[in-house]
């Protein structure tokens, strides 16, 4: 049975969402989701690296010897991450400084290597692009939702790109949502709710 290209794309958004069901690529997701702005930057950066590395891995897949494939994939990914790293430093300095260590750490985001290994290494270019886009979108969507919950709940307002988008009045924000434990709580509760919904659907 052959899946269509559209299916390759959509499956990454909910059914095989990299964060909720495959549970990979967590570190960056939890860390950057304290602000909506950072979540958008990170989502775009990670999706770009994912699509680009999926394309290149899929193109060279017939030439890569099986034993040393992982170092080769890593070098491919590292080159794209360096591109992102230097581009962001040049054009979006504020975003670059806010994300800090997380940009170089995209290299070791298991989500990207996992897709190169599990999908792009075995499939053609077009399907790999679809897979990369779908998984990237699924990842971005989740950190975006988490960032909305954490920023709105933790600070009482959402400030993105120097505009205040929403501001709640008369609300004492629980700061814990902004700090590290809050990320774990938010993610755990979202994941539990998703499982509950899926069970209902069956």
């Amino acid at each position, binding site marked *: 049975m052959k899946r269509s290209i559209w299916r390759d794309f959509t499956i990454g958004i909910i059914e095989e969402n990299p964060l909720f069901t495959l*549970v*990979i*690529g*967590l*570190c*960056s997701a*939890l*860390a950057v989701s304290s602000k909506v702005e950072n979540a958008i930057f990170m989502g775009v950066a990670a999706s770009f690296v994912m699509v680009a590395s999926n394309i290149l891995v899929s193109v060279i897949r017939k030439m890569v010897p099986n034993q*040393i494939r*992982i*170092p080769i994939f*890593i*070098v491919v990914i*590292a*080159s794209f*991450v*360096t591109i992102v*790293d*230097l581009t962001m430093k040049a054009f979006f300095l504020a975003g670059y400084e806010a994300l*800090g*260590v997380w940009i*170089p*750490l995209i*290299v*070791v*985001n*298991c989500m990207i*290597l*996992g897709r190169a290994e599990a999908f792009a290494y075995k499939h053609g270019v077009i399907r790999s692009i679809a897979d990369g886009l779908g998984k990237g979108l699924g990842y971005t969507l989740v950190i975006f939702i988490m960032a909305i919950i954490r920023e709105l709940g933790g600070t009482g307002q959402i400030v993105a790109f120097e505009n205040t988008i929403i501001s709640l009045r008369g609300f004492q924000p629980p700061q*814990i949502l902004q*700090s*590290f*434990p*809050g*990320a*774990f*709580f938010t*993610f*755990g*509760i979202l*994941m*539990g*709710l998703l*499982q*509950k919904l899926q*069970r209902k659907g069956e």
Partner: protein
Amino acid sequence: MERLFLIFLAAFLINNILLIKFIGLCPFFGVSSRFETSIGMSMAVIFVMTLSSVACWGAWNFLLDPLGVGDFLYIPAFILIIASLVQFVEMVIRKVSPALFKAMGIYLPLITTNCAVLAAATESVKPGFWKLSLEYNYGLGEALVYTIGIAMGFSMVIIMFAAMRERIEIAPIPRSFKGLPIAFIAAGLSSLAFLGFKGLFGI
């Protein structure tokens, strides 16, 4: 001596890599469901992390920095060093202990993409990403102590957490939260406890 101890403590407890810095979470949740695999994983991480930090320190101080290419080549260089080291460890474990190799399964190649290893290497070579309030210079001895602190912190939390998860398995919890969701909430509570170490000894 006192300084080294402070560096160790800062890496081990106060800036614990898993619960405070959110680095290395994928293997954390992946292998912590069983006590034995978590011990195997943490041994592998201590070993790889220490070796790779020393190797990256050498590469940075003798090669990348003197040549002036460090800023745009450090990511590929460090990750290559780590990837080859991991492949080496994988071969050794496969030879020495097939049982352990079987138990670790998919996670051993994934040490390569264990962000903790790259983060520890980067951090011990060019500190500043984590904004540690301790002044820190670039000597090999201090980098080594710092890395070992990070690795031990990782191991301690992963083993402790595996024990907690084995207990959670038999606890009565809502069905939707069984497995990973409750693990995240438990991790959040542990992280809350670790926040209490902040400011210890003024670090």
